């Protein structure tokens, strides 16, 4: 698309957002204000519903997906414009969805026609809420060690085992799972990628309380669960390729977290919590240095996202995508620590009315940041990937 038509597109998007995004949806969503969709979902408020329905009807809950599946059919440059314009007015995502972020892109690549029609459409319309069935209690970083077993029973698979860190499995409608279909093959070879309806008999889920006090993650158990053969994505025993493709999208998503508008930002809100000297500098020089270092790091990460985008637009093969999960979540880690440093004991309140919602939110942000450098492939796994694939160091 030419620069002129992109400029035209930008002004159309800006106008449309101005006309259609309710004012209440133009601030970072607080916990409980996000709409995740699914059979059991309720909208947090009427504006959130209005905003979701308008975006859904434009196809902009999944801007880059083909229009035939309910997506917006935008190319990457257009999708970036939409994202930038939404960010400019701090518009909330209308639908927060693992289906959009992770499963959808993998299905677009590996799913058959029937699967794409059934699942993609339901995802963009917010009808299915998905959760991820990857890690197992004994197999986290060593993901390819998957033990959860799926036995071929002719017209169906019989699944037995358990998955951990299944994100909000307690309210999800479906789970995408890595299962072992071949125990003779070497690790990566015998894995298959299955879509499982959470209402199937034999599935149970328990919540895991995290250090943040929240329970975003669960453990899900499969006890003789029958899964129709048609729910297999790609070929049997070849699910590792699907798994890796999905991980790539998961990491891309996580890498962008650092540049999203946080509900408590060290560079703005948290700065009200320190004293300044006569020159207008934060009086505590160590806190000031820490804030500057976070600020500078996040600038570098943001610029690198932009460079990666520009390189793709120019068909330049760069290595930056492989570092973004590491640096994006590193930025989140630095942000969490900067919040605690700036807000002092005000950010240490666990519960009760003595601390404001913002203060308690800062603490949860900090605690949740600890999951980010672990989930989706730990920091250490990311460094292994860089060493192997980019630096090509001997293994």
């Amino acid at each position, binding site marked *: 698309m030419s620069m002129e038509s992109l400029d035209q597109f930008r002004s159309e998007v800006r106008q449309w957002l101005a006309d259609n995004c309710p004012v209440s949806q133009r601030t970072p969503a607080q916990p409980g204000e996000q709409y995740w969709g699914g059979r059991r979902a309720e909208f947090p408020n009427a504006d959130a519903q209005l905003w979701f329905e308008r975006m859904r009807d434009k196809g902009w809950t999944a801007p880059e997906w083909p229009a035939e599946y309910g997506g917006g059919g935008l190319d990457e440059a257009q999708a970036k414009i939409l994202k930038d314009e939404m960010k400019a007015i701090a518009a909330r995502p209308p639908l927060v969805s693992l289906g959009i972020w992770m499963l959808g892109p993998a299905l677009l690549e590996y799913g058959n026609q029937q699967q794409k029609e059934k699942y993609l459409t339901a995802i963009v319309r917010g009808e299915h809420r998905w959760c991820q069935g990857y890690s197992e209690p004994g197999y986290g970083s060593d993901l390819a060690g998957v033990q959860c077993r799926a036995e071929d029973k002719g017209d169906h698979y019989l699944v037995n085992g358990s998955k951990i860190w299944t994100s909000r499995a307690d309210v999800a409608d479906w789970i995408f799972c890595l299962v072992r279909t071949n125990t003779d093959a070497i690790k990566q070879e015998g894995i298959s990628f299955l879509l499982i309806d959470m209402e199937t008999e034999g599935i149970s889920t328990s919540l895991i309380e995290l250090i943040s006090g929240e329970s975003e993650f669960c453990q899900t158990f499969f006890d003789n669960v029958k899964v129709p053969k048609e729910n297999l994505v790609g070929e049997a025993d070849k699910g590792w390729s699907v798994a890796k493709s999905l991980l790539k999208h998961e990491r891309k998503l996580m890498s962008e977290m650092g540049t999203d508008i946080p509900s408590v930002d060290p560079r703005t809100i948290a700065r009200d919590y320190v004293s300044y000297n006569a020159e207008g*500098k934060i009086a505590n020089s160590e806190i000031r*240095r820490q804030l500057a270092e976070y600020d500078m790091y996040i600038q570098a990460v943001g610029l690198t996202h932009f*460079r990666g985008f*520009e*390189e793709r637009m120019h068909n330049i093969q760069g290595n930056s995508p492989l570092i973004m999960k590491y640096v994006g979540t590193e930025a989140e880690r630095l942000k969490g620590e900067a919040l605690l440093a700036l807000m002092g004991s005000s950010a240490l309140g666990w519960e009760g009315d003595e601390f404001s919602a913002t203060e308690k939110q800062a603490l949860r942000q900090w605690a949740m940041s600890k999951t980010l450098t672990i989930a989706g492939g730990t920091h250490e796994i990311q460094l292994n990937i860089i060493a192997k694939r980019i630096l*090509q160091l001997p293994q």
Partner: protein
Amino acid sequence: MSLVLNEEQTLLQSTARDFLLTNSPVDEFRKLRDSRDALGYSAELWQQIADLGWAGIIIPEQYGGLEFGFQGLAAIIEETGHTLLASPLISSSVLSASALVLGGNEKQKNDFLPQLANGSITLALALEDGNHHDPLGVTTSANPSDGGWLVNGRKVFVMDGHSADQLILVARTSGAAGESQGLSLFLVDAASAGITRTRTTMVDGRNAANIELENVAVGADQLLGTVDDGWTILEPVLDRGRIALAAELLGSAWEAFNRTVEYLKEREQFGVKIGSFQALQHRASIMYTELELSNSVVMHAASAVDDDPAGLPAIASLAKARMNDVSKLVTNEAVQMHGGIGVTDELDIGLFLKRSRVAMQLLGDSGYHKDRYATLNGY
């Protein structure tokens, strides 16, 4: 803003790479250093560089330059970091050229820019009074005398100050140390009466000088810009220099890193390549993430000079602070990962370590730029 080079810039960068690898590989720098060369760089090579147009790359065409833009210059300077080129590129073609372009009057531009561009003269910026970068702290004085000024003081750590034909002196015509008002810039012949230059032998083996200024008489026509208001020229000039140094540090850090990664693939201990050790792999990977981030930051800074946004000061400090830190990390790790041979003079890695420390100190260390960045952002 563009964070990819266009076709012309890409071509320029690859031309620069080829030229430098052929004409000034690290061995050439080593020879210069070992010979205690009086000039500190190869005059013959510098003339070749000027003939290629690099000396005048940011100078407008009407004054004999290429007017190619700062992003192109930064791309060249990054390449010079790879081969440790010793040259007056930063002192003369970035700092002094920028000072003349931004602050010079028509006569000054006509008198000096064409000669600067064609390599027949070099200029140097005599800025620092003390051992830490502190442009506002200048106390070198310029007192009115005979319709002009008499300059007194002492300048240190003047890049290429020993060999430059002309000096741009930063002196205080009013105000007190710490104030931006009251600084003035003067363009003086380096051979003027009252100027005593001493070449300093620095750890990086390049040309720097201490300069005594004793009743140096300057006329009104030697004032660059307006009196007391030199800061409005000096600050953007320094930011260009900082971004140029950041580009050099980026190139030299990548080179030290690449050489180290190659060594990790060759060197064997305990019967295996040391690059197979995860302790080393992770440290190498962390450096790689920092270098990738640095590519974006430096390129953004160089393009910001051409776009001239109001945010240039913060962007320049971001770039210089980051490259100071990354260069320090990478050069230290490069020496450490080479082990014993890394601390020998025979191996080139030490040359990168030494240049790094000088370039880190030039125009502001990390503390200076983090402080400036925080202040510019209101905290």
